[in-house]
């Protein structure tokens, strides 16, 4: 077992003179849960864009896995195939298709056009889909059109799709946004269970939800790490209070 699954070091991104990410360094272990918090414009989404290949940094390194592969220069699909899954802030599921189709598309299988064209349904895949559906609580909704699901269900479906991808690193952007209290609880459970076998990174705004996750917290500010540690530890950090929590609580 390696100690570091993903290592981001010295990364800087500039948009029209604005430094969205400023010499950012951060590491993630192969398993466990991590929360990333920070005020608006701290660079949370840009950080995820860099890791998933959507944005190319101006400088810095992003190194992945046992073989220390650089993720810079790989396409989004390559990075996804290497085991990084991403959930967007707004639930993005394929609304015109059924829940089963959504999950089947995400299942870890060959991704080439010809493999997909000649793809046949198997009992093994069906079992996996059923298992994931049970995990996210959508067993009864497998044949429903995803567009008909409630907001929370869509969020779970998207998390389910990530699980179906069987990634080693899961990047989750504000999973609890717009959820009821029970729904949040369920989401927390799903994420905590997932974190037992893989690394799960949750970007959140909502302190209550982060507290519920009960994990190590990284605070981003102006594109760099401001503080790291348990929630209580960072919450007592004076700088953090000044730039973020202080304002948040006010």
């Amino acid at each position, binding site marked *: 077992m390696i100690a570091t699954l993903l290592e981001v070091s010295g990364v800087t991104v500039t948009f029209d003179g604005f430094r969205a990410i400023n010499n950012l360094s951060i590491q993630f272990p192969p398993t466990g849960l991590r929360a990333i918090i920070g005020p608006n414009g701290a660079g949370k989404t840009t950080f995820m864009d860099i890791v998933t290949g959507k944005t190319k940094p101006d400088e810095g390194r992003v190194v992945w896995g046992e073989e220390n592969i650089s993720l810079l220069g790989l396409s*989004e*699909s390559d990075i996804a195939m290497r085991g990084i899954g991403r959930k*967007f802030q707004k639930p993005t599921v*394929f*609304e015109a298709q059924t829940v089963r*189709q959504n999950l*089947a*598309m995400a299942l870890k299988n060959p*991704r080439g056009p010809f493999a997909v064209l000649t793809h046949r349904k198997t009992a093994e895949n069906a079992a996996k889909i059923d298992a994931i559906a049970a995990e996210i609580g959508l067993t009864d909704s497998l044949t429903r059109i995803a567009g008909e699901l409630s907001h929370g269900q869509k969020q779970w479906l998207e998390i389910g799709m990530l699980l179906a991808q069987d990634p080693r690193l899961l990047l989750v952007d504000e999973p609890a946004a717009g959820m009821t209290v029970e729904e949040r609880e369920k989401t927390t459970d799903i994420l905590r269970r997932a974190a037992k076998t893989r690394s799960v990174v949750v970007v959140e705004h909502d302190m209550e939800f982060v507290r519920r996750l009960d994990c190590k917290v990284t605070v981003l500010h102006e594109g760099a790490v401001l503080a790291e540690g348990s929630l209580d530890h960072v919450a007592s950090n004076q700088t953090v209070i000044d730039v973020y929590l202080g304002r948040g609580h006010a």
Partner: protein
Amino acid sequence: MHNSFIARNPSVLWFLAALGLFTFGVTLLSEATGIGLISTSFVKTLGKTLCLCLIAIAMDVVWGYCGILSLGHFAFFGIGGYAIGMWLMYARTETIVLSSLAGQTIPATPQEISDAIGNQIFGVVGSSEFPLIWAFSDSLVLQLAMVVLIPGLLALVFGWLAFRSRVTGVYLSILTQAMTLALSLYLFQNDSGLRGNNGLSGLQNIPGFEATPQATISIIFFLASAFALGAGYVFFAWVISGKMGSVVQGIRDNEARVRFLGYQVEGYKLFIFTITAIVSGIAGALYYPQAGIINPGEIAPIASIYLAVWVAIGGRGRLYGAVIGAAFVSLLSSWFTGGGAPDINLGFYTIQWTDWWLVLLGLSFVIVTLYFPKGIGGLFDYLVRKPS
């Protein structure tokens, strides 16, 4: 395998049944094989319409399913027509030249024959030399291969360039339109080697079947077009069913999500763009022998836009919708522009449909886009959904 595919897609069976019935009916009523109620020229119109339906389903797959509003598929259609037209024109001219040279006391040399054919074909553009692109025009097999290869390769190269640089949406539409415009402008030149704006003509005369009456030829092409439409329909229905369909529609609805799921979106788009281009080429190769003539005007960007109009009016995202749209609008269009529709006398002004049809089409298209985004095909939802 296919059993389950058809079982899961009952609409395919319905479509094949309807197409079969229609084909059978036309055959029975035609001049050559039936009681002669349908004229030869109308059989040709119907045959051509079937080819238009075929390219319409290709358009539906690339636009309605994959979300690429290509304004270039009629260019592929035209390339297919040119490819087969080159053989038809060469072979027929060769027959004529050989029979006219046969009367001479001295048998002709290959060079003399070739010169005479070249003179016949390229005389209109002031040349008698065979351009390089006619190198294979004497071989039916090779020209048939061109019908598939040239649209396929062009789509592959163009698509690779466009998709690789992530050109999407209206940008992509405009780029495909530019490609079509470039092609038609190129063909309009006299030194393009394809007879400039004269195009290729006399394509309704099939070499080797000089003795066969046009009535028979028309019904043969009609049947071939019906078969191609049926085969194309089943093929595309198979492609867009199952997981491929899921991915392709996923690309249409949210390209970025599909990419983050690990699918190489460019490859899928390229695959869809290319196979639909090939099918368009085949449709063109069946269409133009029935039309008899092809010229660069047929490839102009406007034709590809009309194709999009048919698919939109018929109903995107369902193959039978594309078929209905293409058949309905193109037949209606020839009825109106052919003077079939009666003029409307308003007292102070007489609406002549030859003049006003395009106005009507344009406006009805706006209305369909605004209020009936599902098109005519959307009506079937009411019929089919009721039992469940």
